[in-house]
């Protein structure tokens, strides 16, 4: 009987466990997690913060799910190192867990920049915003009068800001970039998002950064690089994430920013697999290896790893970013390349805050941003992921709202009727 | 009140028939006993008999039995007959006084043969010629009615119970090798002598029990071929159908039966290809000759007797044999009263004919 061990209890880990179970209904599957919570939807923490999601709905799987699948989950267990020779994982506290196949799905952690006066260990009102625990702590600390500074106008920072809305005195988001969510939005789209958030009393300080923090145990003010001084009751640091590769380093896995894996999610060591935010993936467009912190790609990779661990060969697709986010009812979906110099087609309706931006390179759709007009977004996503030649479609995708009818009749029929494995 | 021929009157009936297949002749006493047993099946408004082999001395002449309403029409009709026929013998048909028989017409009998020069140049047979003349009299000579016109056979009929009619015509004095009889139960009739059964044309006679629902279809069909259904009775049209198909079109009798009581399409489909094609063709061409609705008939002709039921046997018909005789009747008792111990007795199925013909050389 195979022994499968999975380090990490989120998207990659759980999808891997599911995939293993699908292909091997006898094997012993263990998941260990250093967190004290059952697996939860990590992106839900901002919904928890705002109160839109109650604690009982935070969980990614129902309570008896793992039991029903005969998957053992060990919470509050953190891997310390791996004994490749004996195929054992040592846990903090002295435990040892044997494995035949190991998956490292440790995800990513917050990136903490060097800021003068920052001392995360001492300062009680400085938070990161990645885990359920982060959210619970933050939620406890805030008051109706809190002046909140969010360092970082990325996805996490903005979701944190939205989550805090209405519960605090003021919210100011600071970012060095010239726009919000610079990595996934072009300037025009970012401006729509920013304006919309500003209308909801979120303040932005862009092209600047927090350069100094005042207060020993409690931050009271922060200084920005543009010399502004801001009062601060709560400081949320959300400037980015980086892969958790400490455990990987204990066995000298090949890594760059993240763990290097092949398309079967195998690491450089035999029977050790890795998946999710902690690995590097191949970019669909450039072919470069880089870290994508994406929930759906973590799920996919976990599944692929699970298949291969259960000795059913499966290849991971190349990755490109797809993000669906909403802020105060503004629905935003962005995918692929949005900033490169591509031929853009933009349909904009400022009154309704609608935007549809299609980035076309050569004969391919390489990226898009949709704001408030996202109904058929998945079709664009498929056009990107399948690298569909736009000239072979039934009509010009820039000429009207896209639908499944964009495919030629034969293609459409094939996709629709063939037992679909997508 | 309109009389028979001016309207169509439905009626129920009793029928009976006896044949000696060896051609031995016997008196009408048995047939009278048989038909009178079924007294309840008739109501006194019609009875009649057909007798074959009764005029051996005149066997080459057509024997016309004619009812006249008055002397005037008798004279006119006789002029017509004399013009077209040589009259070998003529006289009134002997009758006997029977209290229940009233309103009797003048009843005359003529033994005739068509005048040869009348046939010359026309391509018709003497039978066809005679038949046309009979139809002409019946159609055009109001008050005269030829009710029998075959050779060596005769029909005797009138208004009254059949046993009374038999007594009236003194049928015990005639000898025939085949007798058929009919007792009638019309629902509404003034009782016209010509309307009684059997109905005959030439030597075809039909006694019939039933009310055919295809009457008008059959009538229109035979009328296309020169017949004229003056009586509007089923028996008349059935007789014409037989005459037309068997005599005029020379269709073998067993085929005629398959036309008149045609097998169902579903049965035809079960037959082999050749027979299927033949039956299909017969039904197709002679669709209008199919007799539909309830009937049991006894057809008499020179060769013998055929009894037939409709396709789904909506009327009773029993048949029996004893030695050289074949009996058919509406009821079994009507056979047993004259033949208490038949060799065989059976109930013919719908559309299955009982064919009792004179044996070869017995005519």
């Amino acid at each position, binding site marked *: 009987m195979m022994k499968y061990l999975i380090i990490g209890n989120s998207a990659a880990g759980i999808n891997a466990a599911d995939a293993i179970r699908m292909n091997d209904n006898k094997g012993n599957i263990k998941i260990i997690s250093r967190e004290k919570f059952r697996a939860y939807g990590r992106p839900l923490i901002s919904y928890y913060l705002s109160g839109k999601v109650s604690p009982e709905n935070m969980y990614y799987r129902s309570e008896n799910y793992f039991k029903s699948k005969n998957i053992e989950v060990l919470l509050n267990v953190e891997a310390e190192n791996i004994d490749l020779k004996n195929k054992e994982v040592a846990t903090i506290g002295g435990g040892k867990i044997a494995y035949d196949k190991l998956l490292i799905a440790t995800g990513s952690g917050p990136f903490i920049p060097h800021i003068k006066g920052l001392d995360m260990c001492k300062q009680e009102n400085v938070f990161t915003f990645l885990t359920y625990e982060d959210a619970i702590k933050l939620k406890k600390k805030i008051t109706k009068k809190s002046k909140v500074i969010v360092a970082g106008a990325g996805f996490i920072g903005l979701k944190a800001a939205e989550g805090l809305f209405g519960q605090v005195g003021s919210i100011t988001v600071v970012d060095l970039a010239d726009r919000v969510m610079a990595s996934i939005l072009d300037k025009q789209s970012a401006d729509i998002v920013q304006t919309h958030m500003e209308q909801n009393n979120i303040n932005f300080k862009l092209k600047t950064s927090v350069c100094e923090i005042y207060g020993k145990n409690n931050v009271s003010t922060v200084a920005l690089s543009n010399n502004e001084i801001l009062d601060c009751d709560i400081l949320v640091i959300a400037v980015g994430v980086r892969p958790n590769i400490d455990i990987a380093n204990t066995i000298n896995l090949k890594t760059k920013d993240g763990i290097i894996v092949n398309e079967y999610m195998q690491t450089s060591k035999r029977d050790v697999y890795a998946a999710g935010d902690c690995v590097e993936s191949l970019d669909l467009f450039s072919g470069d290896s880089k870290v994508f912190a994406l929930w759906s790609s973590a799920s996919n990779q976990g599944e692929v790893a699970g298949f291969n661990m259960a000795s059913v060969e499966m290849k991971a697709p190349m990755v490109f970013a797809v993000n669906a986010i909403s802020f105060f009812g503004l629905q935003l979906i962005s995918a692929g390349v949005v900033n490169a110099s591509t031929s853009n087609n933009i349909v904009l309706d400022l009154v309704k805050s609608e935007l549809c931006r299609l980035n076309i390179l050569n004969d391919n759709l390489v990226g898009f941003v949709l704001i408030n007009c996202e109904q058929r977004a998945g079709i664009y996503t498929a056009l990107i992921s399948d690298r569909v030649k736009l000239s072979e479609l039934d009509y010009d995708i820039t000429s009207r709202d896209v639908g499944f009818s964009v495919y030629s009749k034969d293609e459409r029929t094939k996709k629709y009727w063939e037992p679909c494995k997508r | 009140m309109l009389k028979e021929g001016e309207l169509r009157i439905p009626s129920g009936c009793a029928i009976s028939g006896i044949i000696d297949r060896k051609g031995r002749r016997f008196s009408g006493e048995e047939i009278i006993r048989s038909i009178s047993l079924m007294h309840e099946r008739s109501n006194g408004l019609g009875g009649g008999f057909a007798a074959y082999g009764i005029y051996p001395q005149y066997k080459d002449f057509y024997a016309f039995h004619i009812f006249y309403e008055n002397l005037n029409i008798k004279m006119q009709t006789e002029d017509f007959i004399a013009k077209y026929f040589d009259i070998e013998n003529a006289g009134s048909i002997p009758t006997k006084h029977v209290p229940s028989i009233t309103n009797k017409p003048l009843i005359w009998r003529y033994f005739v043969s068509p005048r040869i020069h009348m046939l010359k140049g026309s391509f018709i047979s003497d039978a066809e010629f005679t038949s046309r003349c009979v139809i002409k009299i019946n159609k055009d000579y109001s008050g005269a009615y030829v009710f029998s016109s075959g050779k060596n056979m005769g029909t005797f009929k009138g208004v009254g119970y059949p046993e009374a009619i038999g007594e009236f015509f003194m049928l015990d004095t005639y000898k025939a090798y085949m007798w058929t009889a009919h007792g009638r139960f019309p629902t509404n009739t003034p009782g016209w002598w010509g309307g009684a059964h059997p109905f005959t044309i030439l030597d075809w006679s039909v006694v019939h029990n039933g009310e055919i629902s295809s009457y008008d279809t059959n009538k229109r069909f035979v009328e296309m071929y020169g017949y004229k259904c003056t009586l509007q009775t089923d028996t008349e049209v059935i007789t014409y159908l037989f005459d037309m198909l068997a005599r005029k079109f020379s269709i073998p009798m067993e085929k005629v039966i398959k036309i008149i009581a045609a097998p169902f399409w579903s049965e035809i489909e079960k037959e082999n290809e050749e027979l299927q094609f033949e039956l299909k063709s017969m039904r*197709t061409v002679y669709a209008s000759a199919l007799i*539909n*609705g309830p009937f049991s008939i006894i057809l008499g002709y020179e060769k013998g007797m055929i009894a037939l039921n409709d396709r789904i046997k909506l009327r009773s018909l029993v048949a029996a044999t004893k030695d050289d005789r074949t009996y058919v009747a509406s009821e079994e008792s009507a056979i047993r009263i004259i033949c208490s111990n038949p060799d065989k007795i059976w109930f013919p199925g719908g559309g299955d004919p009982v064919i009792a013909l004179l044996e070869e050389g017995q005519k």
Partner: protein
Amino acid sequence: MSLSFDIPVFEVVRNEKRCIQCQVCVRQCFNSVHSYDEDDNVVCTDDIKCVNCHRCVTLCPTRALIIKKYPLEFRENTNWTSNAIKEIYKQSQTGGVLLSSMGNPKAFPIYWDKILLNASQVTNPSIDPLREPMETKIMIGRKPEKLDFDVKGKLLTEMPPQVELSTPIMFSAMSYGSISRNAHESLARAATELGICYNTGEGGLNRDFYKYGKNTIVQVASGRFGVHKEYLSAGIAIEIKIGQGAKPGIGGHLPGKKVGEDVSATRMIPVGSDAISPAPHHDIYSIEDLRQLIFSLKETTSYKKPVFVKIAAVHNAAAIASGIVRAGADAIVVDGFRGGTGAAPTRVRDNVGIPIELALAAIDQRLVEEGIRNQASLIVAGSIRNSSDIVKAVALGADAVYVGSAAVIALGCHMCHTCSTGKCNWGIATQEPELVKRLNPDIMYKRLVNLVSAWNHEIQEMLGGMGINAIESLRGNRLMLRGIDLNEKELKVLGIKYAGE
């Protein structure tokens, strides 16, 4: 012309409380009666475009729609009816011949409704079709004068070709072009399943439908569209169309806009060209010419196909029919003045021809009198509406009937009388792909099968009631009929007695 006198004929009444703005009506009305006003979130209507086809009413999921007669009246005048006035408005605006569709709608007597059937009581039994065989099969074709057998009783006579029908009902000629491909397919499939025939009309026969050949009657009309040797051989019988009940003496006209690629290929005419059938056949100016055509068609098909000749019921139909039988036709088809059409000049449709009941009775009587009734089959058409019409027709002397309007009604026709516009919302009389789609042959052929099966059951019931178990025993059996509300002359022509007689 700047000012139009057009007045809506119908009023579309929308129950606002029930309307859910689902816009099914908007999408389904090809006449654009309904439209959605996004600003006010209401569905609006334009009454003047409504033809009362009921498509919207039928599909409205909340029963929010009713179509009513438009309430605007002219001053009362029994002579100048509103119709008479409106027709003048229209003609004075357009300068054109008035066109109408479907059959004569005028209040002429409907003789079917003045004829009553008989049933058996006491003296002979009625027959229960559920327990006893009840035959409705008939053979259409020429019958030899008599059958000859050899001495052994073997059949000697060669039988002319016959068309076998499981029930005496066929689908009338409706061309591919005047009706849609899907309508055609439905008719063909239904006829095949039922064991009856449908008729191509004069639009030729698409090769896709050759497989239904055993149940297809191919028509040869004055335009000779789509006629070639293969076509003639493709069906079970050939019908020469001389006239049509809806427009006796008039040709046909299929507008070019209905001649798409498929229709064009089938008719053998260029795409988009008008298909004009001349009023007469230009090779038939007399009866002897007809005989020549009948026999050329027979020659072409090696005497294997019966040839029908179809005429409109006109005043001297009986004499014409006699001539047609003598010219060698295997069957005569007579189409009464209520017969339907895709388009006919209104005046012709409403004023030319005679009722089929009278024509049928006269023709049958004439043929019987001439002794030739059994030679050819007699098929009647022109508004056979139900099974009792059929029973009466057979009793008057018909071998079989053609149903056209009833068939299209089964296909969804709601008798809006606007076939000629090509905008049939039910996908019948149209070539618009979007509309044609609305008639799903998989569903619709079954409706036809159901209709004919139901009628066949009813025919069997009525036959049984009359004590008849084969339909041929009803043919010409006029004793089974009685007239009501008819005058002496009508009774005489019909050859039936008055009820009570």
